[in-house]
């Protein structure tokens, strides 16, 4: 019984550490992205942000996907300001842990 408890505790701790240390994927719906040349500004702005690992833009869908490094969290307010500084408008945002 004690062995099983120790095993389960170990699994839970390992799972917790993986969840806590994994990065996050943010899907930003950005209004105003209307040409490839304009998209570069927001990509550059986001890539300069500390902790941002990757940025991908789907121009046709108006979606910017931002992946952050392990343990880095960015708030909606931060993204709103970054998108505004790039000259666009953040409509909405969703986030999920990276696999």
């Amino acid at each position, binding site marked *: 019984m004690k062995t099983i408890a120790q095993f389960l505790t170990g699994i839970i701790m390992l799972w917790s550490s993986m969840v806590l240390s994994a990065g996050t994927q943010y899907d930003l*719906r950005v*209004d*105003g*992205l*209307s*040409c*490839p*040349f*304009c*998209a*570069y*500004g*927001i*990509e*550059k*702005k986001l890539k300069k942000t500390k902790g941002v690992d990757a940025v*991908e*833009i789907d*121009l*046709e869908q*108006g979606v910017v996907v931002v992946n952050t490094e392990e343990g880095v969290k960015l708030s909606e307010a931060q993204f709103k300001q970054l998108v*505004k*500084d*790039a*000259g*666009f*408008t953040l*409509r909405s945002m969703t986030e999920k842990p990276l696999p």
Partner: protein
Amino acid sequence: MLKSAWWLLATLLLTNGMAANVIAAPVTFNTALPVSQGEVLMRVQAKYLRATNDPGPMDRKLTVTAVPLVGAWGITSRWTLFGIVPLVDKRLKTNTPQGRVTRDTSGLGDITAIARYTAYAKDAPGRTFRVARFAGIETPTGSDDERDGLGELPRPLQPGSGSWDTLVGIVITDQSLDQEWGADASYKFNSRANDFEFGDEARLNVSYHGRIGTAGPAGGIPHFIYAGLEGNLIWQDKNRNNGMDNPDSGGTTLTLAPVLQYVTMRTVTGAALQIPVVQDLNGNALKQDYIATLSLRINI
């Protein structure tokens, strides 16, 4: 008379679209599209103007080649600062009492600084509508006392105007993924230098660009190909020399320009050919044939 239409032609060439046109947008004039805060864009153009339609006996033939270098810096998401450094080469062939002569000059033109403020922005999915105001000053950095074997070159043939000039304007841009239209209106107040004053200028420009194709690598940001038409209506007041109007200067010109652009994330490559459809110039002014423009914009 030599001073008559040269300045209008040179102005068309050197200030046409120089103000703030550094984003995917019209080739021949401004845009209200954003420059991200802290970011820098560059644009270089090669412009070639030819004017050989001389109604007078002097059989003037003017060619102007210009390379305006433009840098744009996003101070904030609404404020953008532009610097325009033109390099020019002007060449005039004309009949004189001494026979047919060629007079030419080249060098740095007048550097212009412009501030643009986005007064209104309405963003939607895949679309943006913007209205911006701009104001600028043209500084007398170009030489205005060049000489050749016949003496001092006429003022319009000089690389610089010698005067401090100001301009104000408004630009509207509506861009979606498939098309873009734009319009701008501006007024330039030319001042006097060395007892000579070029006439003020008013401009009204419109453009329409439609996406005709998509290219580029699979995945990532596609490349857009645009085709369009741009129109430029320019009015210039008469020049004044020693306080007197020059009756052979100023007038109204309307040009139409087919435009082709290839837009990627880092560059915009474009070409335009401005063809005059109306040239209602005062007096015995030299009329232009065309202005050809090649343009490259780069996201730094």
